[in-house]
Structures are given as structure tokens and as C-alpha cells.
């Protein structure tokens, strides 16, 4: 009996000893990953999308490199669905299915490393939605809720026969819009399309100028945002490089107007300073994970004709005179 106990004691001691000598360190704990969920409801579109990814570890020596594809993908499928709520009760459930064919924007993240889920429905202004992403096998669920923003009425710039767009030192370029009932963030992009002729090489290109971000608590009054022409020319000079012998000519302008939903706007409003808005990465309204569930509306005004003054200043302004834009009168 004593012998059996002794053997058992030594065997147990050996097992414990061996395990205690295990020197493997689990540097990356699988359970430390968090779901990253992005969904921006768009009342202008018939299809809505949810993007699902996960947080990933970045080794110090590879900081700045693109993360590998598999570091963004969950190893299991997710159940994605939304509920439309009325008077504090869900009245409709919308199921999302995985869309493998979705063409994603390029960027620093590998495009095939993000799962896209799609559902066919068109949200309306003021409707409340709850989003759920459920990983059955991992027993993880993330959720968020949002209220769909109102569609802003973009007044200027507008396409009118004979009307031109001027960036000069005397007449300001003004963006005008009426926000609507709910809070929102607003930003315009002036896209300048131009041609570039270098030797026998001809190419159409573009550069963009972003207007400052504007917060509106929700109103029916007209907002005005004046754009400083010199800032525009400075922005052009920062994007285009002087090239010996190049001939550039402006083709037209496009105006893209982004309106971001109330969740983001309220968060920014709490910060109290629009200048700190650049820290979007810190904002999340997703419970159990990270990301944004909100709404956005994009409006596009194509083919705005540049005035002769815009052409003149592109070829003569301090910032852009060396960029090879054709002089007014020679075109």
C-alpha cells in the first residue's frame, strides 16, 4: 500500500514537474481578438452592407506594413441581422447574407480580408435600427443601434446652364445646404478633373479638395460654408508636382457631398471641438466589439464648368503657376 502511494506520489510529482517546465508562451491570445463591425446605412441605396473583421496584432518591426489577410478574418461564419424598431419594440427583422462578389475599395487593408454581408432594403429617415453580429461557435455577439439621418438638401453648387465655378481672390465659392431634422456632420469634396500632356503621353487625372467638417444639430435653416480660394490653390499645389514640359488643362469640377449620421455627430458634439474630429478611430458605438453603426448620405454634382477666372488663376497664382496649366487666352 505504501509502495503504491509512493509510486502515485512520484508519478504525480513528475507530471506536475514536466508541465511546470513547459516554456511555451502564448504571445497572442486568440480570445483577445475583438470583432470589428462597420455599417453605414444609406437611405439612397436599395442594398445595405455590414463589414465584419477582427482586431489584429501588429509586431513592432512590421508596424506600418499591411496586415496579412487571414489576420482580419474570423475563422467562423457570423449571423448578421438587423431589427427595425418602432416605439421601443422590434417590428421587423432583416437577415444579411454573405456577399463574396462585392467589389471593395482599395486601401491599406487587404480587400479580401474583410467579410461583407448584404441585405436588400432601403431605410427611411428617422427609423431606428438595431444591428446584431453573432458568432455562434465562439459564443460572441456584438450589437449597436442607430437612427437614420435626414437627407440634406444640397442647394449650391448646382448645375445651371451657363453657370460656372470660380476660384479667384474676389468672389468666394460657397457651399449651401439645409440639413434636416436630425444632427449630422457634413463635408464636401471638390474634385478637379484635368488633363495632362507630357510629350506624347496624354492622361486624364484628378485631385481633390476637402472642405472643413461642419456640425449641424438638425435644423431647417440654410447652412453656408465659404471656401477660401487660396486654400484651394494651395491644396492643388500640394497634390500636383511641377514637371518640365508638362501641359495641364482643367476639364471640370465635381462636387461630392457627404453627410454622416447622428451617432457620429453627437459624439463629435460631446467632444465640443470639430478640430478633434480626426480621432475617428477612437469612436465606436458597437457593444462587445469595435466599429461604427450609423448612417450616411452621399450626393454627387457632376460636370461643373470652371470659369475663365479659375483657369486664369490656376496658371498664374503663387501656388500653381509652376504646374503647367495652360494660360487663359491660349486655350
Amino acid at each position, binding site marked *: 500500500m505504501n509502495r503504491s502511494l509512493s509510486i502515485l506520489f512520484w508519478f504525480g510529482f513528475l507530471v506536475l514537474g514536466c508541465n511546470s517546465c513547459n516554456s511555451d508562451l502564448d504571445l497572442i491570445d486568440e480570445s483577445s481578438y475583438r470583432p470589428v463591425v462597420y455599417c453605414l446605412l444609406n437611405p439612397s441605396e436599395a442594398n445595405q452592407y455590414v463589414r465584419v473583421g477582427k482586431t489584429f496584432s501588429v509586431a513592432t518591426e512590421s508596424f506600418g506594413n499591411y496586415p496579412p489577410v487571414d489576420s482580419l478574418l474570423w475563422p467562423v461564419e457570423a449571423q448578421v441581422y438587423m431589427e427595425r424598431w418602432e416605439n421601443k419594440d422590434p417590428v421587423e427583422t432583416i437577415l444579411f447574407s454573405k456577399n463574396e462578389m462585392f467589389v471593395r475599395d482599395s486601401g491599406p487593408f487587404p480587400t479580401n480580408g474583410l467579410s461583407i454581408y448584404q441585405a436588400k432594403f432601403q431605410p427611411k429617415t428617422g427609423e431606428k435600427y438595431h444591428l446584431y453580429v453573432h458568432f455562434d461557435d465562439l459564443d460572441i455577439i456584438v450589437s449597436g443601434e442607430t437612427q437614420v439621418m435626414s437627407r440634406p438638401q444640397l442647394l449650391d453648387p448646382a448645375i445651371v*446652364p451657363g*453657370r460656372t465655378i470660380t476660384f479667384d481672390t474676389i468672389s468666394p465659392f460657397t457651399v449651401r445646404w439645409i440639413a434636416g431634422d436630425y444632427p449630422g456632420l457634413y463635408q464636401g469634396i471638390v474634385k478637379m478633373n484635368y488633363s495632362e500632356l507630357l510629350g506624347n503621353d496624354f492622361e486624364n487625372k484628378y485631385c481633390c479638395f476637402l472642405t472643413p467638417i461642419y456640425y449641424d444639430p438638425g435644423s431647417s435653416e440654410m447652412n453656408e460654408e465659404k471656401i477660401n480660394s487660396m486654400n484651394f490653390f494651395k491644396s492643388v499645389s500640394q497634390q500636383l508636382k511641377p514637371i518640365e514640359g508638362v501641359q495641364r488643362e482643367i476639364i471640370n469640377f465635381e462636387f461630392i457631398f457627404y453627410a454622416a449620421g447622428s451617432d457620429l455627430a453627437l459624439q463629435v458634439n460631446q467632444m465640443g471641438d470639430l478640430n478633434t474630429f480626426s480621432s475617428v478611430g477612437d469612436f465606436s458605438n458597437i457593444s462587445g466589439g469595435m466599429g461604427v453603426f450609423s448612417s450616411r448620405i452621399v450626393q454627387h454634382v457632376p460636370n461643373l464648368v470652371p470659369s475663365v477666372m479659375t483657369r486664369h488663376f490656376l496658371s498664374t497664382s503663387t501656388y500653381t503657376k509652376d504646374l503647367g496649366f495652360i494660360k487663359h487666352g491660349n486655350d
Partner: protein
Amino acid sequence: MAMTKQIKLLVLLTFLVACSTDPEDIDGSDSIHPPIYGRIQLNFPIDDSNVPNRCIKRADLSVAFTADSLYRKKFVTVSNVSDYQSLYEYSLKPGSYYYQAAKTCVCSGDTCLWGGYPGGQNGMKWTLGNFKILPGDITYDRINFN
């Protein structure tokens, strides 16, 4: 001791220079710079009698030194005209200027033709005018389409 005298002399000279008054300063003509710009306010109303206002859009408002320059598109400025702004103000150097203004009619049917817009829809009406800029003054003009 000689050094102290030199320092005193230097301080005295500094004060003398600092208190030096040019004749221009005394009469005050140079102490306040005269205004080198004047302003013009151009009122661009939409008030057609035969066409509803919703059909009329402002299309152009350009300023040049001469009427000939307007024709040659050698402008001083071209306004970003809007349907939500009727008063356009410019800060310009003194002198005489010419302006051209255009409005267009966008409604379909015979509405624009009835309103006298050449060709009907998307037809344009043009007008010319001139004004003078005096330094420091604000002048006002109303754009009329006859």
C-alpha cells in the same frame, strides 16, 4: 569715465531719433493710410413678370474694366452666382468697371418662350452695366434686364 559719456551720448541720440517727427506725420496725412479699395454691391433680383420665379436661375455675373474686356472674357472677377443669394459685393480698386449678368429659364413648355427667353427652355437673357469705385465708399447698383 569717457565710456560713461559715450553711453549717455548714445542714449541721447536714440531719444532724439525716436522723437524725430517728419512733416508728414505732423499734418497727419501719412499716419492713417487712405483707403485704397472701395466696394460695390450689385443687387441681382429675380423678378420676371411673365415667368414664375422657380423657373429662373442666375447664370452669370462677371466684372471687367471695360465693355470690350467683357466681350474678350478678360474679367476682374466672375461670381459664383446662386439662386439663394441676390446681393453680390466686391472689394475693388478705385476706377470704373463694367459688369455683365445673365439669367436662364429652366421650365419646360412655352413658359420660358412666353417670358422672352430666346429659344425657350435654357434660353438666356443678358444685360450690361457699369459702375464707379471710389476709395473707401460703398456704392450700390441694381441689375436690370430690359
